[in-house]
């Protein structure tokens, strides 16, 4: 299911509804994106007071439906949810929620990761940050392109490089 809305959402209630009555679900992975009070990843930590998300309504719904369908085609999912807000949001407020439910945790986690990576570069949203220097449009960044690109080629990952020290 996808939703595009100005209003906030209740993560716990959304998850309840997503899983309700489906006892084939063994794991649910959720990602919630929040407005940070520092700008960008590489801009020297400039404080932001708020962020306004602009989008292209006629296209947004189509794009989210396509992204969700792609996840369902790639992983064995029992249920999926994408909620994306638009409008003016302040630090600490929720921007986006994606949730994926599956019999198996790997499928749920990978599909959740995929959804948020693809939303970053394939959903028609643009972010205007309010900073002490005025409004600044958030630039797309190379790391997001790279993250989205990981899911473009090859087969579903069975293993992934270890992360340890």
């Amino acid at each position, binding site marked *: 299911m996808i939703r595009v809305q100005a209003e906030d959402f209740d993560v716990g209630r959304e998850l309840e509804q997503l899983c309700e009555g489906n006892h084939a679900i063994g794991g649910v992975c959720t990602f919630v994106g929040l407005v940070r009070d520092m700008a960008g990843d590489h801009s020297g930590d400039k404080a932001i007071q708020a962020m306004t998300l*602009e989008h292209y309504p*006629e*296209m947004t719904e189509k794009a989210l439906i396509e992204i969700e369908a792609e996840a369902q085609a790639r992983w064995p999912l029992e249920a999926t949810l994408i909620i994306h807000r638009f409008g003016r949001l302040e630090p600490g407020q929720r921007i986006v929620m994606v949730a994926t439910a599956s019999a198996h945790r790997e499928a749920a986690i990978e599909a959740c990761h995929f959804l948020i990576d693809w939303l970053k*570069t394939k959903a*028609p949203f*643009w972010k205007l940050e309010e900073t002490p220097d005025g409004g600044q449009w958030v*630039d797309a960044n190379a790391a*997001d392109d790279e993250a989205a690109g990981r899911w473009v080629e090859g087969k579903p990952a069975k293993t992934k490089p270890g992360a340890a020290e």
Partner: protein
Amino acid sequence: MKLLYFAWFREKAGVAQEQASPPDSVTTVALLVDWLKSRGNGYAEAFNDASVIRVAVNQEYVSMDYPVAPGDEVAFFPPMTGG
């Protein structure tokens, strides 16, 4: 043809949406961009850096060589930053 502008394309072009009637020779997105740039002022500035022009025709994300025709809805915007 209906043209839409988002984010700083809207700010630079100075318009969120407009009806336009480009000449018949404008048959692709790339030719439409050239024609819009020729209007000068904000348009020239908005379309100055080809590397950050993204376009959707009838709400589908397309490349610069995609065909356009009268009646289409064409939207211009910078790279998307969803999520």
